[in-house]
């Protein structure tokens, strides 16, 4: 089989639309997954509402213990049965966000728990509430430690959007697949698809590195 470079230049713009969708899905997932994960992580360390703590713990346990593909199918087939029908696009965002939230919960929790207990004791002794202690004292200090694992999580999320091809979301991987099925070009398509993912992940990693060095110096 020959690798035809001229095809790459032809395919790149055709796959661009898929790339844009992948970026959109990633951005939405990160916005939802990151914010809810941080909130859940703060909730976990706060130890309030024991009954809800168990639920959150169970949620994290399930999301980390089952494959994302299974979770996508579950959201896709279960939500309509519960009376909630989402488009494949939003089904995808929901599944990916839930998945990411579970990981971010643990990243947040472990980062805050690694902060020296003296910080919390000092905060309490000057009269801060538990929420103020978490929000003003512990989370800002934990943020620096959260950057590397969150960068990993971000990169995973971007790559994970490819799994949404199974529920017919026309993101980058699905877009590539459909070209393959129509035109029987394999290598060139996957080459472009791979390069697109690499570029995006590289961009994210670079930004994260700058953030880690400059902002959290």
């Amino acid at each position, binding site marked *: 089989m020959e690798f035809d470079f001229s095809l790459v230049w032809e395919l790149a713009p055709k796959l661009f639309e898929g790339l844009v969708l992948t970026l959109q899905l990633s951005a939405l997932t990160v916005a939802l997954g990151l914010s809810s994960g941080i909130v859940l992580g703060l909730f976990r360390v706060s*130890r309030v509402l024991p009954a809800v703590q168990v639920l959150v713990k169970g949620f994290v346990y399930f999301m980390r213990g089952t494959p994302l593909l299974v979770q996508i199918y579950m959201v896709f087939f279960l939500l309509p049965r519960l009376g909630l029908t989402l488009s494949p696009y939003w089904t995808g965002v929901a599944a990916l966000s839930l998945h990411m939230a579970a990981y971010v919960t643990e990243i947040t929790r472990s980062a805050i728990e690694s902060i020296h207990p*003296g910080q919390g*004791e*000092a905060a*309490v002794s000057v009269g801060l509430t*538990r929420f103020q202690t978490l929000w003003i004292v512990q989370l800002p200090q934990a943020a620096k430690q959260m950057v590397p694992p969150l960068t990993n999580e971000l990169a995973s999320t971007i790559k994970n959007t490819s799994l949404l091809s199974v529920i017919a979301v026309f993101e980058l991987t699905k877009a590539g697949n459909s070209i393959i099925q129509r035109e029987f070009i394999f290598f060139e398509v996957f080459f472009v698809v791979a390069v697109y993912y690499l570029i995006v992940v590289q961009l994210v990693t670079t930004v994260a590195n700058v953030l880690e060095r400059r902002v959290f110096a």
Partner: protein
Amino acid sequence: MKAVLELAGISKSYNGVPALHPNDMTVSSGDVIVLIGASGSGKSTLLRCSNMLAVPDTGTVTLEGVALDPEGARPRASRRQAASLARQRIRMGMVFQSFNLFEHLSAMENIALSPRKVLKVDKTEANDHALKLLKDVGLEEHADKRPSQMSGGQQQRVAIARALALEPSVMLFDEPTSSLDPRLTQEVLRTIRALTDNGMTMLMATHEMRFAEEIATEIAYMDAGRIVERGKPEQIFHSPAEESTKDFMSCIL
């Protein structure tokens, strides 16, 4: 003298191991009570029980005539319980062995944080007051430094200023110089001495025996979770009554 802080029957165990047997202690206005004794004798636990950083298993803590509600210190405390405990905690200025300055904030921000967030003082006013307190402890030129950019002695003086910013009625010192070298120890002790000169009420645990003898109005010697003997410094240091006190004193150079 008016009682500021009263501990009645305070005890505490950790995993079934008693750290503090039931003890009583009254700190009156103007008192400087210094707790001495071996490591593990319960000095820290007594101090931490005073402001509920450690919730005592038995007994009551009364501050300025009002009993502290231990429920406020628990994770499940209601908002009202937590707030009422917080209002009492800020009347007790806690200074820790390891300083515990907020690592991500400057010296000035460390001091101004609680006045702003708890007392709702406006930012300019809180910062001005913080600068004044920094000046009092001789650190006004370090106002914008992070804890990691300061020496241990400087950090501890900032920590003292942070506690003073809330205008406490009693200061609690938990071995404030135990992680400092002799020179830094002296600079922190000078700051503490200046407070006693102004009549600040204190409860302090320390291993600085000469300093204790000099500033204390009363010494309490602790052993195995009990206050074994208490009295005027000259009595405890020079003519202790109890065997274990004598034994401890014989170790002092």
